[in-house]
């Protein structure tokens, strides 16, 4: 790839926000037909750089030069950059759920004949584009009826409808399961064959190491280095070293588990889908958690892990059919979230922005939100105790914020996640269910979150971790359950856990119930 002509060169890009220098003297050289990854921790400037490139930050709001196809480009807005063939696909997909695949592909770009949409051409081209990205669906299917993986493909098809020359993907696999991620990565390789250039931003370093031809690493708004993957023999550790500026010895803190008795047990848990009443999202699921144990739930997206967890947590998902919860040897009945909290359960949701936090809150109101009774006397809030409680978590979890009066929206993903953890630690739970606790969080913050999880276990609490990242489960958990279509298909102790075995159990019911 070293010899391929340069498609894009960003020279000495500096972008300042008052008080913050988001980018300083950043250089990026992308060659024709390569997959170029940009790696860096949160706040390193990756997104800002892409916003400069795509015209979200228009020409004039930054200093430096963008040379694209050999000429200097001065994009005034996104339309201008799209016109030049630069298309960015954001992590939050920009699709309209109530419209069909075809309609979404051509949204704002409809083939027209005399001012009227030419549906015949649209449908024909949609089918072509869908074939190109390997999407097998009826083009009239509504977006809301297809999964995230396929939605991502629609986004890419949409980019192709605009004659893309440089495709930018921001965290494309963050929300995808293993199979869909695989498919997407294969697709990118396929595009490379066809000479399409891609830039990919991802926190999943294994994917970057596997797929990218070149990697540019940013740290604190500076370009650290650009690695040629093949020539330099780059692996994950090498990337991490560049990102954090030091060798990270282990991705998981050292931990010696101290596991006690089984104190929490769910027996034959069966739950119906909230709308489709003939569908069961959990089928006779049984599991146990011991004191001080970190238990993993592995499964593909849609396997029903979140649904299972939420239905146990105060029936907050689906319709309860049957099953028992036994805690400390006694059966308990949990009918609502407040019952669940009362019984010492905590559920840290998968999606902290849409259901985990009230984004209008500041840190202190978020921290106390799930157990106001601890800081109220006869219903009246004691603001001093609220402040003290929040302050103690801010310092013990090392939340990066000057005060607890800071709104949660000003925090980075990792720090927001710490606030959510604090919110649930504040409820003094015996069992914490953490759903994708490190999604979208950078390497350093992940390490800290793992440390917090281990400390919670050491306090004798049980912790359930639901994660789509197998290395995370294997590195962190003492025992892993595999879930497939609402059924628990395996119970694998740490020493036996390897990705291959887990994947096998995650994709089939027939395997042994207990290995």
């Amino acid at each position, binding site marked *: 790839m070293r010899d391929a002509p340069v498609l894009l060169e960003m020279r000495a890009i500096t972008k300042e*926000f*008052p*008080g*913050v220098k*988001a980018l300083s003297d950043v250089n990026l050289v992308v060659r024709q037909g390569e997959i170029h990854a940009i790696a*860096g*921790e*949160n*706040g*390193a*400037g*990756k*997104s*800002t750089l892409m916003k400069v490139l795509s015209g979200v930050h228009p020409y004039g709001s930054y200093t430096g030069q963008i040379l694209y196809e050999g000429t200097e480009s001065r994009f005034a807005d996104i339309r201008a950059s799209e016109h030049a063939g630069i298309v960015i696909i954001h*992590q939050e997909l920009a699709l309209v759920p109530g419209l069909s695949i075809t309609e979404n592909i051509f949204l704002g770009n409809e083939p027209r004949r005399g001012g009227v949409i030419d549906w015949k051409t649209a449908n024909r081209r949609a089918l072509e584009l869908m074939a190109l990205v390997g999407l097998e669906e009826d083009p009239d299917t509504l977006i809301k009826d297809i999964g995230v993986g396929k939605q991502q493909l629609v986004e890419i098809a949409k980019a192709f409808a605009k004659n893309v020359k440089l495709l930018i993907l*921001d*965290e494309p696999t*963050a929300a995808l399961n293993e199979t869909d991620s695989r498919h997407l990565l294969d697709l990118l390789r396929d595009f490379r064959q066809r000479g399409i250039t891609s830039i990919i*931003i991802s926190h999943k370093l294994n994917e970057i190491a596997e797929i990218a031809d070149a990697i540019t690493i940013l740290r604190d708004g500076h370009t650290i280095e650009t690695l040629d993957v093949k020539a330099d023999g780059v692996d994950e550790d090498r990337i991490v070293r560049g990102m954090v500026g030091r060798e990270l010895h282990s991705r998981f803190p050292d931990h010696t588990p101290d596991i006690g008795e089984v104190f929490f047990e769910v027996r034959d848990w069966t739950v119906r889908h909230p709308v489709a009443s003939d569908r069961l999202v959990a089928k006779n699921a049984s599991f146990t958690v011991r004191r001080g144990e970190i238990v993993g739930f592995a499964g593909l997206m849609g396997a029903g892990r979140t649904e299972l967890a939420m239905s146990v*947590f*105060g029936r*907050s998902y689906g319709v309860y059919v049957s099953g028992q919860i036994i805690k400390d040897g006694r059966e308990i009945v949990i009918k*609502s*979230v*407040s019952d669940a909290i009362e019984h010492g359960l905590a*559920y840290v*949701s998968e999606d902290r922005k*849409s*259901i*985990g*936090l*009230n*984004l*209008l*809150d*500041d840190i202190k*109101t978020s921290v106390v*939100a*799930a157990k*106001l009774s601890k800081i109220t006397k006869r*219903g*009246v*809030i004691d*603001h*001093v105790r609220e*402040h*003290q409680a929040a302050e103690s978590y801010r310092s013990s979890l090392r939340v990066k914020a000057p*005060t607890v*009066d800071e*709104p949660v*929206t*000003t*925090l*980075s*993903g*990792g*720090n*927001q996640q710490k606030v959510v953890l604090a919110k649930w630690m504040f409820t003094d739970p015996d069992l914490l269910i953490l759903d994708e606790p490190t999604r*979208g*969080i950078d390497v350093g913050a992940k390490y800290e979150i793992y440390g917090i999880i281990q400390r919670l276990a050491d306090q004798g609490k049980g912790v359930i971790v639901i994660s789509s990242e197998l290395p995370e489960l294997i590195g962190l958990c003492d025992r892993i359950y595999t879930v497939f279509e609402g059924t628990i298909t395996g119970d694998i102790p740490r020493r036996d856990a390897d990705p291959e075995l887990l994947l096998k159990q995650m994709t089939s019911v027939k395997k042994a119930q207990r290995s």
Partner: protein
Amino acid sequence: MSRVKELQKSLFGGNTSNARQFGMIFTLVAIVLLFEILTGGLTLNPGNLISLVSQYSYILLLAIGMLMVIVAGHIDLSVGSVAAFVGIVVAQVMQDYAVPWFLAVLIGLAVGAVIGAWQGFWVAYVGVPAFIVTLAGMMLFRGGNQFIGNANTIPVPEGFRVIGSGFLPEVGPDTGYNNLTLLLGLVVCVAVVVREWRGRRTRREMGADAAPMWISVIRVAVPLAVIVFATLQFAGGRVGTSFPVSGIILGVLVVIYSFITRNTAGGRHIYAVGGNARAAELSGVKLKRVNFMVMMNMSVLAALAGMIFVARSAASGPQDGIGWELDAIAAVFIGGAAVSGGLGTISGSIVGGLVMAVLNNGLQLLGVGSDRVQIIKGLVLLLAVAFDVYNKKQGRFSVIDSLMRPFRRDTPTGPASSSEAGQERGKSPVAG
């Protein structure tokens, strides 16, 4: 952070809604002064102040309830009709059954509670959007008013009229002022001082550095000056008039509801539900109960407002309360509440309501026709909210800073963009 901003933060608190509130107070003062000049001193004269309070207290009362409804993410279009319905019921029972007036008030509140329970049931437990439920309620109870009263006007007895047109009585020695009003003013002054003192103590307990003494002095001195002035005006009016009873009812409710929304778990739940209902539910908040209570409370306050209005106009009629819901909603939004819920304060809504009231009153004093008054009020509402929306896009709002900007040359970029960077980081904290 600029010094101006720091000063603003210590005077008014640091967050956006406080800053917004300051903007509204500033606007209110400006409007009052403007009309004071334009009307040649009529606006702040005792007679006008007294009629201002008794004329708008019921709208402000509705604004209290509406604030909570809007914070929870709903709307209530039925308040005018509910007020009229309760008004006619109360007038009718007093006329037909000679029920004593205090009992009639209780009956009115009970009817309000039943209506509120009805609407709350549909909103909270069936899940019909409040817009629809209360639009239905608007028709239903308007019709109910005319059905019960046969579209006639029914007078109410003298005793009942106190809550709408009564004043603090004259007692004690002749001081040239109404003594009870003076006492009331004194109580409020003491309350302001105590509040500031307790606030400082709380901040010390939190370990935060308390603001310098002179800031506290300003925070106390300015309100005290306003209260002393208002007290003298209200107490020094025509003999027989003083601070209206309806104003006292309003004041008490403002204090109670401010406390509830700010300092109780129940109040915090309303904000949680409006900010993110699903997150609130997953934090153990009983969503349905909160929605039910908020809708029910609104109708009870509407009932009270209806009775005060009937008492003031001495009779209940079929045209009572028309358009009140819109005045209340306007007050809440001018006072800084978010259309999407989760944000807003009682005091902000009261200030918003006062802006509308003073505007209305001032224009009337100037002899401006009701056609043009409507147009001006409409524009004020639009501009106030547009200003808010614009500021949200630009980042955080700062009136002082925007006022000071022309006098500063050293900082080329305004403070607005500095928080834009913060916002942006907040918006995409994942891919940095």
